[in-house]
């Protein structure tokens, strides 16, 4: 709870900083707020406490995801330092990101559907604005419109689902719903199951699972690169944390009903995402499609819940978010200097800055799932947990589609090691612009070398 309060206060403070002429301190202030929130979040470890009339439950699951969310946002702030410090409306940007993070944290801590709904909306509304924050750019406008339209449309489904669940069980509380379902299993009204499907629709939209993924490539492509980074890392993490929490804590008694849906969705999502990504020339759009594919792998955790699926999902999300940040750090800098976002615009990176190229390679390998980097273990844990769940066919498809994925991830690596297209191309203004890439590359390697330290947490 403290975490949520601190984050909100930091957000409000950031918004007010313009009024009090504290703009210079804005960056430091936000980082400080995030650090304090991080400390409080870690402090909650092992506490298992409920707040706000049992509407928020801080268990270890929540603590781990909250910490990850704040940590990733911290890195995101480091990466976007130069952009927002030069931007006139920096305080609004910071405030919106912090609000959206607050929403994300609520989505991982909820134990009541009200909080889930509020968290989701706080997260999303801030993002609708951020997606369109490049006001003069038609692409950014379009991304914002599409995101908003489809987002609020999906919210309608989610709410209708929540209403139906409430009607069937007369409660919004996860524990109470779960107990009620357990007790009346078999004699539940038809509209209870319809409610599950509606909620499933509303939430899988957020994680961009096929067939609710159409908005994703366009929105990720059109939004300003930094906002896309935030969406791909933090938002995806929060959405999955919420989806998994809801279905495991609440609908576990009727798991036979929803498992096949997730299994099929997972297979279709990973195949479609990977296959479409192969044909993208723009690095940003390729990463957007690849994020759809990754959502497919993460859905495997819901297709075989129980067992180690929880730690598998957590590890996968962490590995994915870290490598995404690293790659986007490069993309952002390249775009800033050259104005281009194609895969071939990273050509010559090795020539200019070999260390950066190696770190980029680590991040890409992590996305592709090749040992010894973090992504391999994300996939590995996920596949093993799915195998234990008995879905061998799904693992087969996952292995196959991940091999397709290797193709386009390698395209980037190879481009980075090729000759530059133009001599004297710069890929960043100063070496410190790539700090986040270095941190992410090293973290990916560390997680790949010592995976069980993190995977053992849950």
């Amino acid at each position, binding site marked *: 709870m403290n975490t949520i309060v601190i984050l909100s206060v930091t957000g409000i403070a950031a918004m007010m900083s313009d009024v009090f002429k504290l703009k210079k301190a804005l960056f430091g202030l936000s980082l400080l707020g995030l650090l304090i929130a991080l400390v409080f979040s870690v402090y909650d470890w092992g506490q298992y406490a409920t707040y706000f009339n049992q509407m928020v439950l801080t268990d270890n699951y929540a603590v781990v995801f909250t910490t990850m969310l704040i940590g990733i946002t911290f890195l995101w702030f480091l990466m976007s330092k130069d952009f927002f410090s030069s931007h006139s409306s920096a305080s609004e940007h910071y405030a919106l990101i912090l609000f959206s993070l607050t929403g994300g944290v609520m989505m991982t801590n909820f134990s009541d559907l009200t909080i889930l709904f509020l968290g989701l909306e706080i997260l999303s509304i801030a993002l609708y604005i951020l997606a369109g924050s490049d006001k003069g750019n038609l692409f950014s406008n379009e991304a914002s*419109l599409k995101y908003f339209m489809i987002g609020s449309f999906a919210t309608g489904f989610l709410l209708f689902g929540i209403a139906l669940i409430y009607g069937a069980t007369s409660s919004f509380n996860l524990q109470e719903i779960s107990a009620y379902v357990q007790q009346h299993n078999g004699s539940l009204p038809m509209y209870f199951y319809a409610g599950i499907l509606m909620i499933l629709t509303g939430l899988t939209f957020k994680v961009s699972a096929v067939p609710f993924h159409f908005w994703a490539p*366009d929105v990720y492509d059109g939004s300003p690169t930094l906002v896309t980074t935030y969406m791909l890392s933090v938002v995806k993490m929060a959405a999955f944390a919420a989806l998994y929490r809801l279905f495991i804590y609440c609908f576990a008694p009727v798991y036979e009903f929803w498992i096949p849906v997730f299994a099929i969705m997972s297979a279709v999502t990973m195949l479609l995402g990977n296959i479409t990504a192969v044909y993208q020339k723009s690095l940003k759009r390729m990463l957007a499609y690849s994020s759809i594919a990754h959502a497919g792998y993460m859905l495997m955790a819901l297709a075989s819940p129980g067992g180690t699926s929880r730690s598998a999902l957590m590890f996968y999300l962490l590995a994915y978010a870290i490598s995404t940040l690293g790659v986007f750090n490069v993309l952002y800098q390249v775009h800033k200097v050259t104005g281009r976002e194609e895969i071939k615009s990273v050509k010559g990176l090795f020539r200019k800055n070999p260390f950066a190229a190696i770190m980029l390679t680590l991040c890409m390998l992590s996305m592709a799932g090749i040992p*010894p980097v973090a992504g391999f273990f994300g996939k590995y*844990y996920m596949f093993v947990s799915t*195998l234990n769940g008995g879905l061998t066919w799904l693992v087969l498809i996952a292995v196959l589609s991940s*091999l397709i994925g290797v193709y386009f991830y390698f395209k980037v*690596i190879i481009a980075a090691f090729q000759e530059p297209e133009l001599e004297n191309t710069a890929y960043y203004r100063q070496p410190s612009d790539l700090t986040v890439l270095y941190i992410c590359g090293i973290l990916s390697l560390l997680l790949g070398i010592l*995976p069980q330290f993190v*995977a053992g947490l849950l």
Partner: protein
Amino acid sequence: MDLIISLIPLLPLAGFILIGVLNKKLPKGMVGIISNTTVLSSFIISFYLFLSFIKGADSYSTELFPWINAGGLHLGLSFMVDHLTAVMLLVITGVGFLIHVYSIGYMQHDEDYPRFMSYLNLFVFFMLLLVMGSNYVVMFAGWEGVGLCSYLLIGFWFKNTDYNNAGRKAFVMNRIGDFGFLLGMFLIYQTFSSLDYKEVFEAAKNYPKGDPTITAITLLLFVGAVGKSAQIPLYTWLPDAMAGPTPVSALIHAATMVTAGVYMVIRSNVLYMLSPFSGEVVAFIGMITALMAATIGLKQNDIKKVLAYSTVSQLGFMFVALGVGAYTTGLFHVVTHAFFKALLFLCAGSVIHAMGGEQDIRRMGGLKKYLPVTHITFLMGVLAISGIPLFSGFFSKDEILAATWVHSPLMFVVMAFTSLLTAVYMFRLYWLTFHGDFRGTHHQQEHLHESPSVMTAPLMVLAILSVIGGFMGMPHWMSEKLGVHHVFNEFVAPVIYSPKEFILSHTFDFSLLIGTIVALAAVYYFTRKMYVADKVVPEEDSETKSFQKVLANKYYVDEIYDAVIRKPLDAISEMFYKIFDINIIDGIVNGIPKVTNLTASAARMLQTGRLGIYLVVMVIGVIYLFAFKLLL
């Protein structure tokens, strides 16, 4: 000892990082020194380990740190060095070092010399990881790593072009292979709940022979080997990979990486022993590959392509040996092949260097007097690969033939014929390149020169190894006479689970020897007559029957030879190349992208950018969801 073992792979890695990070800030001399000393140090350590094995050490293992500890599965990032690994280490670091030395001369003038050397170091690191891992996951890490380096190096000279078709082909084929390997790994985990070699093999020994699960595992793993080691049907990427610089072809596509599949099968020999069916499959695929690649090699006119097909063919030999259960023999051939094929490639590089980048043997000829050292060393390589008695190739190939004879005489006949073909295309290459008149341009002729000594020195070392390397594995009749044992087999024996004995009667051994000598003499005579005395030059691609004239002046014997042997062979070679290589294999390889292309374009058709359509498809999705769950 732990530290020393870990140093073997870490030194080249350090070299890669050092050169990679400092890149052009380093003087060229320093680049050469760093990359070479790291590999040389690894070689020295490997040699030290090797000596300790000779003194009777069993095996070393060291765990850098525990990697995965979950659900009863313990996996470490750990190294294991046993007799098999020790042999591979010597080959990788030894031959690797020589190729590094050679590269100093070969790549010196390339502006990206530091980049090239750093990739080579990185490759050595991954290759060492592959053979030193003590579980399948570490092996897979190395497996992917060498693949990555291979693509980086194939594309090394492709400036300003998008990743091209050759690279893509290599890529798709290796992905198919990896698919098999990964599935094999998962099946191993599911069956034995472990991926550690020792645990898996201990557990496997309790399984009955012919157990279907083991058969499935071994077949899946073999799919991986087929991809990496360029066997039918996934072999055509290897000839295409010749686009890379020649030292790369020598190191990666001849001596080390392509033998990774062979290493993997030998490493898993316990499993393969338990599945006779898989053994048959391995041997059969190897046999067909060896034969087909050899026939295609007969008609190639690019010096590197001939060697590439020859590599495919020799890898086929190795798999035949593994398939019939002669694991030590297969490994023996890996070693001798590394010597002579690296030598041949480096010589080819020296020739290409002298010819100013020309690779077509129809433009060469008579290079003997311009490149004396290259000529002699190349000849040694040819003699070795052709299996001339007392040269290294003879010993290993002889052993393979003996093993196939015990297994199945029919297979023996095919393999014997194939090894004869080997001699034919190698001698053809040799005569056309080094004898006769020079057929290149005047300009090229003026610039012909012997390579600098930094390039010829490795050639000489490899030539010596190619000549004497076979004596560590003398056949039975010879070792009995001399009172020396088959050193190689004895050394590797501890790694092999219930090794088979392939001992033949001495009469057979001798007749094989006599047969070899007679056949090779005939090959020597006919090819020399054809390519040197009659000066037959392979027709240009555009011409069709221009050598009819030559035929007119021939003897009766020649015509028979022509009608009975050469023409059918040419026809078969042509057929395999045209139909199989180009149509079927390329068709399949290009077909996979086509299928994905089709799916992708269907998916992209919906991704129209129109919000209205997205919303409609979303609702259709919801309707399907409901129909699927509620109505069914």
